């Protein structure tokens, strides 16, 4: 469950709170959202005076006695399966219309702060085309940060849109992340164009050191190729300049490319360019394309079956691995990769988007495999079960 709908009761404003499945005797001050999955759970409500004071909302299953809610705002009639997915420590955002969004999922490696819908590029395969920002987006993210458990969070991504469009506010957010979540690696997903401004790059580096890691998309070895994919002329040289600033500062940076008909044919020159011009990057991720948004719209122009480019991908991976630039493969099921590069694959598809097809049932390596995007319109035609590794 990433989001669910229920019947709203007494909700006037959006509510954000930390999920709890048991009402504690004492509260730690953070607003709580109590999961009521069985009628008995309501019985202790009148006796938990201290936690009552910070109880922001209830999330309940069907057929609960509403009179026992005691006037606390609630979303009722959620399915038992949906409620069962919620864990203590999750953070949910509840809208007055009964929409419940899981903003943070405890224990998941895929949590992120979504900081803007705006972007300064328009990539041909963008799964989520740019849009205007809702007014309260910033406040929501700051509130979410405050609700996280500093001892528990080990990684958090900042993504968008293009986060650097926030300017100084991004620097502030990164600083806040580092201060409030000292144990967390903060991964900022950015095209880095704005960071060709050395002062901005410096401020960001200082705010995030040593917890900040940047992942930057680079789609080609020349401006001709990269700018075409990014849909923005000049973006290649902006990014290259920014990457050299970041290297000078000592800011760890990884690169990513998305594999499709515009990038795959020149994947080896791309790897060569990285080694000769950006040898300081700490990893290069080759990502499978999520066929939604603009990728779906441009599917005829972009789609390649991963199975058909597996040799080219393997060659680029080998090329970088030989040169001590760590390559990684994201968003690819293991069975479409050549065996020697499977160790480079990472289980990267967000849990709620992850899909395994019926053919995967008998696969011996399903445990290590990230599956395919459940959100896309197209998957490889060559999925097949593998023997256990």
């Amino acid at each position, binding site marked *: 469950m990433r989001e669910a709908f229920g019947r709203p009761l007494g909700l006037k404003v959006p509510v954000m709170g930390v999920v709890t499945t048991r009402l504690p005797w004492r509260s730690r001050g953070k607003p709580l959202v109590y999961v009521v999955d069985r009628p008995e759970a309501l019985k202790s409500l009148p006796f938990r005076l201290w936690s009552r004071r910070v109880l922001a909302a209830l999330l309940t299953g069907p057929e609960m006695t509403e009179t026992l809610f005691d006037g606390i705002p609630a979303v009722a009639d959620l399915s038992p399966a949906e409620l069962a997915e919620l864990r203590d420590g999750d953070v949910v955002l509840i809208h007055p219309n009964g929409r419940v969004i899981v903003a943070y999922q405890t224990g998941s490696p895929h949590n992120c702060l979504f900081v803007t819908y705006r972007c300064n590029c328009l990539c041909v395969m963008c799964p989520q085309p740019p849009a205007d920002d809702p007014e309260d987006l910033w406040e929501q993210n700051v509130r979410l940060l405050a609700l996280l458990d500093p001892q528990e969070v080990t990684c958090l991504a900042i993504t968008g849109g293009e986060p650097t469009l926030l300017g100084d506010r991004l620097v502030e957010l990164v600083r806040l992340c580092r201060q409030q979540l000292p144990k967390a690696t903060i991964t900022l997903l950015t095209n880095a164009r704005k960071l060709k401004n050395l002062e901005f790059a410096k401020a960001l580096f200082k705010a995030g050191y040593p917890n900040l890691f940047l992942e930057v998309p680079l789609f080609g*070895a020349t401006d001709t190729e990269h700018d075409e994919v990014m849909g923005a002329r000049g973006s290649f040289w902006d990014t290259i300049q920014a990457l050299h600033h970041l290297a000078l500062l000592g800011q760890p940076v990884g690169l990513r490319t998305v594999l499709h008909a515009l990038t795959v044919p020149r994947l080896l020159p791309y790897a060569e360019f990285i080694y000769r*011009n950006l*040898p300081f990057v700490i990893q290069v991720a080759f990502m499978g394309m999520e066929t939604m948004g603009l990728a779906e719209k441009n599917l005829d122009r972009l789609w390649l079956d991963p199975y058909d480019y597996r040799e080219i991908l393997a060659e680029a991976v*080998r090329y970088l691995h*030989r040169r001590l630039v760590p390559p990684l493969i994201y968003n690819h099921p293991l069975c479409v990769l050549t065996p020697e590069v499977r160790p*480079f694959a990472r289980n990267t598809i967000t849990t709620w988007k992850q899909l395994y097809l019926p053919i995967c049932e008998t696969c011996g390596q399903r445990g290590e495999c990230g599956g395919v995007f459940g959100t896309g319109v197209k998957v490889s035609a060559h999925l097949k079960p593998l023997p256990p590794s």
Partner: protein
Amino acid sequence: MTEPYVLMPFRFGPLPSGRMLLVNEAGEFLILEPRDFTRLLDYELTPGSSLFLDLKAKHFLTDTQVAPVVNLLATKYRTKKGFLKNFTGLHIVVVTLRCNQRCHYCHASSQDMYDTRWDMSVKTARNVVDKIMSSPCPSIKIEFQGGDALLNFEVVKTIVREAKRLNQKAKKDLSFVVCTNLTLLTPEILAYLKREGITISTSLDGPREIHDRHRVLRTGGGSYDLFLKNLALARQVLGHDQVNPLATLTRDSLPYLTDIIDEYVRLQFRGIFLRNINLYGYARSERYQESFRYPISEFVKAYKKALLYIIELNLKGVPLTEDFATILLSRILTPFSTGFMDLQSPTGAGIAGVVYDFNGDVYPCDEARMLAKMGDRRFYMGNVNRDSYLDIFTSPVMQEIVNKSCVEILPGCHSCPLQMYCGADPIRNYAMQGDLVGFRPTSDFCEKHKAILEFLLELLADNHPEVMDVFWAWITNRSLAEVRGICR
């Protein structure tokens, strides 16, 4: 602009195979068919074609912006010339000229075993350390040479002690190597080397028949058996990889290169450095010309054959590196600077490394010291007992050497496509051709490096995956399995 694209600076020339080699200012190369090269120059390439994008990605041309390409090339050029940033890191100290061996080709002008006039004094040693620790280089390597360095071991100890004492303040990355023929090694000396973290550099010419032919004791007889015995002892105390040998290839050993390589494999050495003999010192004497001297073309021929043999060994599971190829391949294939004193531009002599003679005289390299020993003090930089650090390292002779060793402006080098991978040796030019600048068409140095670089480039152009795996195992100092990604 009427042309569809702008050519960026690069050098070019045909390879032996007839294909055209293009190398840019940052050392990136591309090998083109002559027909394509002509089309490039005639502005006939189609923008957006695969060849066009290859050339553009490596910055041989651009059809969009010029300024950012120049900036990027500048950054890469600076990276390649990084060896200049830190100044002198390798400090060779000749602690004595005395030696218990009398190798026929000795470069080092070794002297009688008991004539202590040829020893470095403690006072000179202290002044040497003082100069060494004045170097701005954050990483200092002190190499003890001779004669045989073990014959004046008290001075070795003095230098180690003094350097470490001064380093408590200087906090440099300090390391020591002692060069010895191993024959005088004792358990006491080994215990000391172990305690102080000092490694050994030694000489091994090949199997017994080859080694003993020229590496003989002053008391008579070969040194091979003693070498083997003490090698085992040294490895036992210091660790297997702490003893590294060099081979001297003479005319009479060149035909047996594979036997020499096999000997290195048999003794489980990590690598071998195949280098031609230096005709300095005793190696110049008439008596041995027949057994030493060979035309450089003969060395190149043997080298190529040997390199292929070593690659084959690696693919059979024997992890032996060829260290000269490793240096050149690093230059060709990586964006980084490579520290190799003998082949830099400007020359590494004096800048990357320097030699302190037993009497405190300072020379830019060992060859310059040999010349002085033969009576020509042309490259004398100063003396540690009389001159200051600054006087020595900014001496007129040092400035002249730098001036005349930038391949970018040397006749014959200035337009050579191999320039970024090569270097200059003004001292050798002077010794062989009587002039620091030298004359490339008759230079052995040029002939050797050109031939070997071209050979390596043709191997790279073939792009055989197995060979490339071996090369990258050498460059990145990993096993074949790791390079292939099997070991993770």
